[in-house]
């Protein structure tokens, strides 16, 4: 390439000043559009992620509610059982109190055994009559069947075993 000119051309801008301005504005707008689009995309992604997490949390909470309901049921059952036991204990306590009230002064109580539908009493009585007069009548009024066994001690007193039965509800129903 031969260059013949006495002067060299100055470097010229490719675009006019106003075209440059337009291009800058268009580029800025384009960048803003893309940024806004990206922002929306990221926001949407985060929302989706959050929704998924919330859904998972809901599922976990539902499972927890089921677990808690089960625990609640168990606690209610335990509570009912506790109350039942408490009532029964109260009853037993009352029964023991009643039983102890039944024992007249001359008679000594050695031990007793209370079951669901029977009461077995071991004790010492000075005479059979004392027993038959003071102790047997209340027992017979309470229990349906009363069987007493005596055993004479060397000092002339008697050891006794009193077996007292009441018919259970099941037995009543079968009858």
């Amino acid at each position, binding site marked *: *390439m031969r*260059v*013949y*000119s*006495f*002067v060299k*051309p100055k470097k010229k801008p490719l675009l006019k000043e106003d075209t440059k301005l337009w291009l800058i504005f268009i580029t800025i707008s384009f960048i803003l559009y893309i940024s806004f689009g990206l922002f929306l995309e990221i926001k949407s992604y985060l929302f989706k992620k959050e929704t998924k997490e919330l859904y998972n949390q809901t599922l976990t909470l539902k499972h927890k509610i089921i677990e808690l309901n089960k625990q609640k049921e168990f606690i209610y059952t335990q509570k009912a059982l506790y109350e039942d036991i408490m009532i029964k204990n109260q009853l037993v306590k009352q029964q023991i109190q009643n039983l102890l009230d039944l024992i007249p002064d001359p008679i000594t109580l050695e031990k007793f055994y209370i079951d669901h539908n029977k009461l077995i009493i071991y004790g010492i009585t000075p005479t059979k009559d004392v027993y038959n007069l003071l102790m047997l009548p209340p027992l017979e009024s309470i229990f349906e069947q009363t069987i007493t066994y005596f055993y004479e001690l060397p000092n002339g007193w008697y050891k006794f075993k009193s077996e007292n039965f009441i018919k259970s509800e099941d037995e009543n129903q079968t009858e």
Partner: protein
Amino acid sequence: MWLEKFIKRNFISFYKEENYNLLLETVKNKNIINSQKKEFENKKELEKFVIEKINENPQTYTSTVLLTLNQGVINSCQKKDYLKRDIDYNNIQFICINNQYSFYTSIYDLNKTKKEYKFELDFIYSIFAPIDFLAKERKNRFYVLVLKEYLAILGYEDFIPIFSDIITINEKEEEEEEEHIEDIEEIDILDDLTENIEDIEDLDDIEELEEENTTQSSSTNIEVSLLNFVQASLKEYYENYSEDFIEKIIILDTAEISPSITRLLEDEILIPAEYKKIDLLETINRMSVESL
């Protein structure tokens, strides 16, 4: 830059003769996609048009050629060779081509041309540069560029231009040219020219040319000036520049002279001549496109 392939560039070339002749070419990837020729009577109109085009497209390059007498070519780029030819090295600007030869012009003329217009000139060429750009045959050839008001000649010896001259055709300029010749003490050449003009007027060929041509007087004037100019140049060339004979004269015409000028030259100078019609403005634009 890859983007430049897609950018449209305007190349405006112009020069002043009677009027301002201008060519605007729109170029994309070195291909011309649009061209527009204009002629302006005054400088203001030209400036208005060019500034308008520069404002429309910042990629607008303006080019012109120097049509001053203080320019030429020498077969060297060295200062000592300029000094040998009595050229004031400090007051010229030159452009070296292929490190073999250089075109020079006066700094004063160059600066005057630079400041002459309200717009900036991107390329300023010597009038001999388009001739060199177009010159395909470069072995003992004379190229004569014919403009309406100027004649420029470039002589090649051995593929390198070693001789150049430019004259104005109108009378006023001719007087100046005569004074210039007197300066270099070549009055005898002027006498030869005058004699030659008288000879040519007697020739039948010239009469035929005059009949055919619509712009008779001006065309004849150019042709006569051309013949005289070539004869004088040949004389000076053989005397001061080279001993090799010029084998061919090639006329590069922009002024629409008759192609039969070759016959006239062949008859008078006895050297084969060739006529080529060229568009100087197109050539200047091509040079500018190639320069970028």
